[in-house]
């Protein structure tokens, strides 16, 4: 390879890293609110899928990506509220209920797609005017900056921290732990929905079956890697995005012998890296003390 070729190659890689990281960033910020307030959110995966489908469907019918994004985020947030009521008010086990919510999303979406489009697997392709070109990038940058300061400085940020670390203290101060957690879970639904939206109407041109492919879980892993802090989480997402971009760039490239490396083996790269990162480099990350524990007043 010449210098110019390497240069274009790196530029491409950089470019696609940024693009691919965007759904992860949205979802990880969503997971951030939920987990800091004490609610594990395995349901991120399903919420992203709901967001992806709803955004694509609404953008298809209204020919407006803006309405699609808004609708997708709201519908995903309704699902999140449903999840929140079960785990916060009914004290359902958060991992089990999260798995159930994912199943609900995976089952319900094909049924609705069948009624709307008469196929279960995907939504019809969107034309270029009905999609976003740059908006999600701008939005995520604004959101990162906003969330970073908002969580530090606002009273809600403090409440959410207490709900996750010491809910009884928050309760004694006269603030409803239930409401703080429910609002955080609702926010995580909005953000996960936007993450799904960026998959279906920004990075591609339609919803397709299981298009999230574990990104919701990877967002959670990024959160652990980022030690439940916003900015380190952003860098963790960029790392996972980089590995995913690398994976796509590597497809079809001959590394050794005559055959290109099989696509099935390259595709597992992000998942392998996630495991390695979680087991090797996290060190003594301390999750919020009350993470996963349902709150009872007595």
């Amino acid at each position: 390879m010449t210098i110019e070729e390497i240069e274009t190659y790196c530029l491409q890689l950089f470019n696609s890293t940024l693009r691919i990281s965007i759904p992860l960033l949205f979802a990880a910020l969503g997971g951030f609110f939920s987990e800091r307030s004490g609610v594990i959110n395995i349901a991120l995966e399903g919420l992203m899928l709901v967001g992806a489908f709803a955004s694509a469907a609404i953008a298809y019918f209204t020919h407006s990506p803006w309405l699609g994004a808004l609708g997708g985020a709201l519908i995903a947030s309704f699902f999140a509220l449903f999840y929140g009521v079960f785990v916060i008010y009914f004290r359902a086990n958060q991992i089990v209920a999260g798995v159930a919510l994912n199943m609900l999303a995976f089952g319900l979406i094909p049924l609705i797609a069948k009624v709307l489009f008469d196929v279960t697997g995907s939504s019809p392709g969107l034309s270029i005017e009905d999609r976003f070109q740059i908006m999600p990038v701008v939005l995520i940058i604004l959101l990162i900056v906003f969330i970073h300061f908002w969580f530090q400085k606002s009273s809600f940020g403090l409440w959410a921290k207490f709900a996750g670390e010491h809910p009884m203290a928050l309760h004694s101060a006269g603030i409803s732990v239930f409401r703080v957690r429910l609002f955080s879970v609702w926010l995580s639904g909005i953000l996960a929905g936007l993450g799904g939206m960026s998959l279906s109407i920004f990075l591609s041109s339609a919803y397709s079956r299981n298009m999230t492919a574990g990104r919701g879980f990877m967002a959670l892993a990024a959160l652990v890697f980022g030690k439940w802090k916003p900015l380190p989480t952003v860098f963790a997402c960029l790392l996972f995005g980089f590995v995913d971009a690398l994976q796509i760039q590597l497809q079809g490239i001959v590394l050794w012998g005559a055959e290109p490396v099989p696509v099935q083996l390259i595709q597992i790269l992000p998942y392998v890296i996630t495991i390695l990162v979680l087991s090797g480099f996290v060190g003594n990350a301390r999750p919020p003390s009350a993470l996963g524990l349902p709150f009872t007043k007595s």
Partner: protein
Amino acid sequence: MFIKKILIIIQPVLAICMGLFIGLMIAYGLGENPWSVLKILVNGAFGSTHDLASTLFYTTPLIFTGLSVTIAFQCGLFNIGAEGQLLSGAFAATTVGILFANLGSPLAPFIAICASFIGGALWGFFAGYLKAKRGSHEVINTIMLNFIAVGITSWLTLYVFPNRGTQNPETQEIAAQFRVPSLFLTEHATVNFSFFLALLVAVLTWFFLWKTVLGYKLRATGQNITAARLSGISVNQMQILAMVLAGGVAGLVGVAEILGQAGKFRIGFSPEYGFMGIAVSLLGRNKPLGVVLSALLFGALHKGTMNLDLETENITRDLSLVFEALIILSVTAEGLWSYILERRK
């Protein structure tokens, strides 16, 4: 106290009714008559000997994955990775069946069954080891391992043992002597040996967890990890052991699918048996007997909803996932049940 005891029994039944009711209402919302949907479900699952055999066929893997989730859960771990473990186990059985095609021993099926177990156990071991030694959370790790298992088994299927005679993404057939026997209910309807193996494993799991010292230590770790550690139990070893056993039992799905049914590894053969196992285990209250019963229910739901594709206009077999999700949510909503209990008093 008495009310509590009754509630333990009727709560799963109520949860099933609630899940089915809401699921049928969703079907109604999508434009179907709920009564006829229910009839299709029951007919599809139990309508004929053939249907019954199919129901039992789907029940078998669910018993294995349900037990797998149960074993891990009794040790305080969430095994979301049964899907990857069963793929690994199934592929191990396939590999043995293809590589040792000349083996003439009458023990051949037994060797392949062991291979299934070991394949799954290996996949479970990774998650258990990472949890015990590196402290990384088993939920995310097992989910990642699922994706890795899909990638690796697909690659092995397409590049290492491909079936050259067909366009289907599947391996060559395993040698005939490795197959486990089928039991014919009628001419076409078969249940294979693996169903009885599943029942046997359920009994063994119960015996191991509740009647042996090792099982007691494993459950003690799950009940209170600090107390277990202080009383001298090596909780790290227990966590690894639990995941190895959980993985091995999930791997036995390979017996049902590869040795009993298809005779080859087909990419995508599992309709998420691993995730359904979580529902099965939970509804069965994480006890082997409960797992067998709820596996039967979910097997019936799975078989019954298949007929929806053909017999209804608007809804498809995806409804089974909705039913499962709703049943899990109904079972797990502890606060809802104690609220009902308080009202009754």
